[in-house]
């Protein structure tokens, strides 16, 4: 379970405050969506949860299963179960995708005091998960995300999510840059990971993604706070009426 209490955050080197006392809870097994206009702080929220250093937390706390993660570096948060699917996955030239996947899985296992994966088990796990997402073997041999299309990069994010088996998945604008077919594949990948022990925070501008990943709850974010919370029908309402009313309210 993810609990965010009165989170106040600014950009580290500037005076600009982005999150202004944000409260949010995502229960195990819940799929929560956050919608909101540009500049409302959605991506900042995802980065702050994952542990990016460019921000300064002025107040509040972020608890994962009751434990405050704000003192942890990004790698410790990942090992504790937080996974951020990036809006723009980074290209890492020179690092083969398989090398990276193995390093990531074993680093998390080491951090949790588990034994490292044996190579045959690792390859089996990757191949199984890649098949489900329609990821070709050739992609796994290439350097991480280098030369991948937008859709391929997002599928690679979901592949990592499947392999790392986090308890809290954050999807930052996962639908951006995807055509309809790619969107469906990615959404199916996410839906396959829905589990009573796993929470999802799905950040998006548009209702479109939520046609494929049906949320349990929808939060509207504006000016760094959650300004309204409802069920999945709230997303449809927003699609019709726009964010204007909420921007005013904030």
């Amino acid at each position, binding site marked *: 379970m993810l609990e965010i209490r009165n989170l106040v955050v600014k950009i580290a080197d500037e005076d600009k405050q982005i999150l202004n006392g944000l409260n949010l809870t995502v229960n195990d097994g819940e799929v929560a969506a956050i919608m909101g206009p540009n500049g409302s702080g959605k991506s900042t929220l995802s980065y702050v949860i994952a542990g990016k250093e460019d921000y300064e937390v002025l107040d509040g706390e972020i608890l994962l299963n009751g434990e405050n993660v704000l003192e942890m570096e990004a790698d410790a948060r990942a090992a504790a179960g937080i996974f951020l699917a990036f809006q723009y996955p980074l290209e890492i*030239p020179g690092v083969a995708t398989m090398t990276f996947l193995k390093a*990531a899985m074993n*680093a998390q296992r080491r951090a949790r005091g588990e034994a490292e994966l044996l190579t045959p088990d690792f390859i089996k796990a990757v191949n199984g998960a890649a098949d489900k997402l329609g990821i070709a073997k050739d992609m796994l041999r290439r350097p991480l995300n280098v030369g991948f299309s937008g859709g391929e990069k997002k599928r690679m994010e979901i592949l990592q999510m499947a392999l790392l088996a986090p308890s809290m998945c954050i999807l930052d604008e996962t639908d951006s840059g995807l055509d309809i077919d790619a969107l469906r594949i990615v959404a199916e990948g996410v839906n396959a990971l829905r589990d009573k022990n796993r929470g999802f925070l799905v950040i998006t501008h548009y209702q479109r993604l939520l046609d494929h990943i049906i949320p349990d709850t929808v939060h509207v974010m504006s000016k760094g706070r959650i300004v309204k919370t409802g069920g999945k029908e709230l997303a449809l309402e927003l699609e019709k009426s726009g964010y204007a009313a909420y921007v005013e309210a904030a």
Partner: protein
Amino acid sequence: MSVVTPLKTAAEQALSAQFAAAKAELPGALPVRKLREDAFAGFEVRGLPHRRLETWRYTDLRGLLREARPLAESATISSAVRSRVAALPAGGVRLVLVDGVFVPELSTLEGLPEGLAVHSLADALVSGRDDLARILSGPGVASTDAGLMLNTALMRDGVFVEIEAGTEQAQPLTILSLASGEDERAIFHRSVVLAGAGAKATIVEIGESVGSAASQINGAIVFETGDESDVQHVRVITRHAPATVQVQSLLATVGGQAKFESFALVCNAGTLRQQHFVRYAGEHTEIGLRGVNLLGGSEHSDVTLVMDHEVPHGTSREMFKSIIGGEGTGVFQGKVIVRQHAQKTDGNMKSNALLLNDGATMFNKPELEIFADDVVCGHGATVAQIDGEQLFYLMARGLPRPQAEALVLQAFAGEAVEFVQDEALREMVMSEIEAWLGAREASSVVSAV
């Protein structure tokens, strides 16, 4: 008219005395003796290269060489030397120099593959072959370098390798040049690789020290390759005492429609100046010079290139990657000369450096001198820190910071290593890089604790 006689440093005076004492016993027939005399006269006029010379601006050899160490006159074959030789991967021809002297008993001389002839440089110097002076002089652009002059004057030994035209050497030929490091010595060695037309070969050059004493090393390797030849050169310079001062000159004259590629890894090498002088002697030739420099402590690595496009349709690719920590200093000076007739020259030169902390320094100086009007030449030089976005991405997947950094750095260096064609050599280079990064990772974990 006033004549300015610069004051000679103690080291310069000592070098003069050494040359005077050694010139009678240094190997060479009459033309070689003349070559030595002329080179030393040229050196005496110039003195040790210093920072007021544009080509030596960032590596002040005069300042660095406070004292000239006694000349190494013979090989000290310690047990450490023997175990290093034994640790070479099996297979292929190995030629071993110890303290600049060729050691036949440690080298493979029996059953050389077809088309390969090997002599010691000392033997070649006394052989009286009439093209020796030309071969040893190398490209014209090297003729005024005082560091090389010193090597010409004082070179004691090395290997002289001839690869017959039209033959292909299936396995790499390794020249292992060890400093015994038992005491502080000055080592002057030179090797020559002649590849006939259409010959294909891979030459590995490993320069290491096996003892803890800091040597002064002045080495040179000369390549003269024929038309349609394909020569790969892979160099690793490592395991030297931090106080080692070293100049390594590479002279290459490459024939037409030929390929010549050189890659150099430098790590744990003290103070090192590599200078490559390369001449395109025929059209439609492709030359690639690449390298990785890993620096820490107070190490200094200078890569200075002079590419001389004399003829049309030459292609050159240079890519150097530097990772600099501690108080390390990297230098890249790359000069591409495109002469008036060298139309359709295609050149691309890159030097990228990552600085790991505030004490690290990088000097980048790419230069293009273009006298032809129909050429494509570009250069790019960057100095940056580790990309924070890449680092966050890897850490967000669970990699601890030191491991994430090592992976980013390995990838950065790997871009240049990819050009090493032989897979086993590529792996050897990568494992040296991984070991260096691993040592850095381990020390950063310790300092974090």
